[in-house]
């Protein structure tokens, strides 16, 4: 335990056994030609059992990459991902597949997250078919009769608001609207009762009223199934609405972490501040004051100092030379900045 704490002195976690998933110095590099792009640059974060954490940031911040490495759809270059205390970042074969029962993902585009050639039943039952034994142990029922499984899938569809579920089983996705497809995707991701759901911008392609339904549903399911959520979005409003905790990312780094309320009300990182001030309210702009222009330019990784230094109104020499570490500034409020706001 002692050694682990020392590695993670910059990790926003209390170090107890409550951590469901913990990212330790996670780095992911994409290479194109000679260019090395740090999609994730030593990310340290954790999500507790039953907790929901939002990852917010603009496009290119690495937030989607973090989601993909969390469920092991992408391999990391260095660091560790501890799931219930075990490093899952280098699993292969059967042990990888058995880990995957614990995590599921809901994708952004409802139109391509379901196979158009498969019926709704086929899509939702796929995880059960691939994990028959596990499913039987989980539910304590024999999963060998098709009619039994069809009933189970129909029940699950009922739970996600596709009622009556029986009527949807044999439909192809093309008959469903975007909102309905997203519900099917939720049903599929929940059928094995995973511990963690990664939702990558699940509402950004939906209409406002449909998006509200999905958010309501997610809130309800979270209560019923008691899973943890990693909610990835560029939209701070829904992020704050869904999650207790929030992490702000910028060019592959976590620059601020804390409770959603704390961050949105008292942002400490200048970047978070600009993000929040840029958000709109019903009624108009949050502020009329002019904001600093953000220009990240061509980022090729390997930035020595702070990723935000070039756009930051408070930049000093130190910011250009030294990487600010994520540090606890207040109870449960962490920021990676040499000159945090409000102090």
């Amino acid at each position, binding site marked *: 335990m002692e050694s682990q704490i020392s590695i993670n002195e910059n990790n926003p976690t209390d170090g107890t056994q409550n951590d469901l998933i913990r990212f330790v110095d996670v780095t992911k590099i994409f290479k194109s030609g000679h260019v090395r792009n740090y999609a994730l640059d030593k990310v340290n974060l954790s999500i507790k059992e039953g907790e929901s954490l939002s990852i917010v940031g*603009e*496009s290119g911040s690495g937030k989607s990459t973090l989601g993909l490495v969390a469920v092991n759809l992408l391999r990391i270059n260095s660091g560790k991902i501890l799931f219930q205390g075990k490093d899952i970042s280098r699993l292969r074969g059967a042990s990888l597949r058995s880990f995957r029962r614990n995590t599921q993902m809901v994708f952004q585009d409802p139109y391509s997250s379901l196979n158009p050639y498969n019926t709704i039943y086929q899509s939702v039952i796929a995880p059960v078919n691939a994990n028959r034994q596990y499913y039987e142990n989980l539910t304590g029922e024999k999963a060998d009769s098709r009619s039994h499984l069809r009933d189970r899938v129909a029940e699950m569809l009922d739970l996600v608001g596709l009622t009556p579920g029986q009527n949807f089983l044999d439909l192809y996705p093309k008959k469903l*609207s975007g909102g309905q497809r997203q519900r099917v995707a939720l049903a599929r991701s929940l059928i094995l009762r995973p511990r963690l759901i990664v939702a990558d911008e699940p509402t950004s392609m939906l*209409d*406002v*009223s*449909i*998006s*509200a*339904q999905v*958010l*309501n549903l997610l*809130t309800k399911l979270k209560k019923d199934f008691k899973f943890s959520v990693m909610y990835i979005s*560029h*939209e*701070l*409003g*829904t992020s*704050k*609405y*869904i999650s207790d905790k929030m992490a702000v990312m910028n060019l592959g780094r976590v620059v601020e972490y804390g409770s*959603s*309320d704390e961050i*949105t009300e008292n942002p400490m990182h200048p970047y978070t501040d*600009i*993000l*929040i*001030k*840029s*958000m*709109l*309210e*019903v*009624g*108009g*702009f*949050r502020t009329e004051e002019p*904001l600093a*222009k*953000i220009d990240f330019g061509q980022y090729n990784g390997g930035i020595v100092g702070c990723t935000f230094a070039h756009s930051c109104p408070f930049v000093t020499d130190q910011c250009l030379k030294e990487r600010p570490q994520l540090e606890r500034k207040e109870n449960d409020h962490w920021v990676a900045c040499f000159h945090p706001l409000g102090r």
Partner: protein
Amino acid sequence: MSDNILLIRNLETDYSLGNGGYVKAIRSLSLDVRRGESLALVGESGSGKSTLALSIMRLIEKPNKIAEGEIIFLDKDRDISVLKLGEIGLRLFRWKKVAMIFQSAMNILNPVMRVENQFIDTFEAHNIQDDYNQRINKYLTIAGLGKKVRRLYPHELSGGMKQRVSIALALSCEPELLIADEPTTALDVVVQREILFELRQLKNSLNLSIIFITHDLSVASAVADRIGIFYAGRIVEIGKKNDVINRPAHPYAKLLLGSIVTLSTPRGKELSSLEGTPPDLSKEIKGCSFYERCPSHVKQCLTYDLQPLKVGEDHYVECLRAQELLDSEY
């Protein structure tokens, strides 16, 4: 009303279903756009708001058609009946009188032409005589871009830059009316704010009239003087920004407002849920199109002949019970 710039009367635009049938994307819609105002039209996908923009520009193409109605552009000295324009008249009307900013900035620029050439062909088409270079520079600067952009190809620009180029393009022939169709939807929040800010500023400095089309009420309220709510091919509520946002009268507008999540939405608050699906626009709709999904419907709604009812100063609602609902709530 002499301060109007555009009048739309009983417009109906139909999309062909390919089998002889039509979907009425716009259903007998009437609307006045005032000179110098910015009017935001808010609706969800399929509500017909983009179709209205394309109809005003006469960009509805076969087999789809504008089946009925009138669109009149009130020029300084004469009225232009847009739907009656011939080929040349239409060509000169577009961009010179009404210009448009499209939603998908990614693809609206010709990928094999340099940015400056896409300005120049527009100038040539509209017989603009002054120095092209100066003019291009002027509008690129207005849109917040440097001169370097002129020599670039579209694929060398970022999403935000492309949208700025398209703003510069839209303004470059000095139109009197600007239609902006979801101009910031694909952009990050910081850039979105910058562009909305700029558009609002431009409206004031150039005395533009703007029709702003969006699905996002918060975007609409950032730039609009008036807001119109679209549902099933009609404007169901229209009024001053603050009236529509603070005292929405149509049940749909109310639900839409209740389903928005912003930073000030408390966590765990049940969001308004809009059950069911919009009506099938290929069939005839009797009475109010929101009837089936409306929590406050009564029998009479089915025979209602769709008249905008005045519920306040400059605030009109297409709902039989609007006044009654307003009185009971506020």
